[in-house]
């Protein structure tokens, strides 16, 4: 079995993917990963996850055009220019 190793450097920090180990079960993976990723006290904690248990999401279709959820979904600058033109005003001076 392949176990993906996620390593936390300090308590409170995010776990980051650090590599993988091959082992017949979790107990062996535990011993193996401790040796590989902890023998100098460089890790606060490890997560060992069987590779099959990882459900990866990598495709990000945007069928419903969800850009109104993001800042780049709004064209304020252009609209503001038109609005000022209609109102006959200029941009306020920087204060």
């Amino acid at each position, binding site marked *: 079995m392949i176990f993906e190793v996620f390593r936390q450097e300090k308590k409170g920090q995010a776990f980051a*993917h*650090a590599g*993988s180990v*091959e082992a*017949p*079960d979790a107990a*062996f993976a535990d011993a193996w990963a401790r040796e*590989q990723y902890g023998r100098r006290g*460089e890790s606060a904690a490890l997560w060992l996850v069987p590779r099959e248990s990882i459900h990866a999401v*990598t495709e990000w279709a945007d069928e419903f055009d969800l850009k109104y959820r993001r800042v780049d979904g709004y064209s304020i600058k252009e609209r503001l220019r038109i609005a000022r033109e209609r109102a006959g005003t200029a941009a306020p001076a920087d204060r």
Partner: protein
Amino acid sequence: MDTRTQEFLEYVQAGGQVEAGDWMPDEYRQKVIKFVEMHANSELMGVLPEREWILKAPTLQRKLALTAKVQDEVGHAQLIYRVAEDLGKPRDQMFADLLSGKAKFHNVFHYPTKTWGDVGVIAWLVDAAAIISQKALLKCSYAPYARIMKKICWEESFHILHGRDVILAMVTGSDFQRELVQEALDRWWGPLMQFHGNPIPRDEDPMWLWRIKSQGNEEARQQFLEGYVPQIRELGLTVPDPNLRRGDDGVWEYSEPDWAELKSVVTGHGPRSQDRLAFRARFLEQEKWVRDSLLAA
């Protein structure tokens, strides 16, 4: 080159990184496997010259430090073989190709370790040359390889310190100890200068084209000379190359390394190539029951 491959090439050349499950051109996959496999082989074979000195180390502390270094290097081999396995080459096949001579390992691991001076020079200067290549791999376009390189580079920094400490103890010791260091440096300088490979322009290097490597061979060698020649000279040691000098432009000039020797050594004709492969073959056979019983568990 088809459109998809062209897009992939542009993506990695712009600094893009690839994960194991992503689509990749077959040529890229094969190049990454070849590179990664040679690196793993070098870590595995690279412990053999040092291992010979574990029993002969001068103090208990040195013995423990050397054992720790050997453990680190074997651990690197394990991590790197895992990366190659995920790209589709089974480990048994990699071991078979290593033993048959089909796959290579770095030139510096084909030479004997004559004295404790060699152990110091290997840990200091061979590891220094290696860390220059490995640091450049932190930016490798193949992300799983780049990620494990962080741990590897971190551990290599201990090895350089260990090597430097061994060398400093010897150059501050007796005349005999000093001579051992100078003799070892004389033996290792040639292989060290060959280590980063022939100076092909990086644009002609397929490993650079696909951004597997992020620097050219000559760039790496220049970085090694710039960093370490002053450190060697400050200890009163002599670099055995009368043509070695730093030009006004900061570029080091040196005698042409022996490329024929490099080629002969990495194709299995080095002074210790066959002994070490035979040793590795014996241990793979001897420990087969451990692998079999663990993987059958």
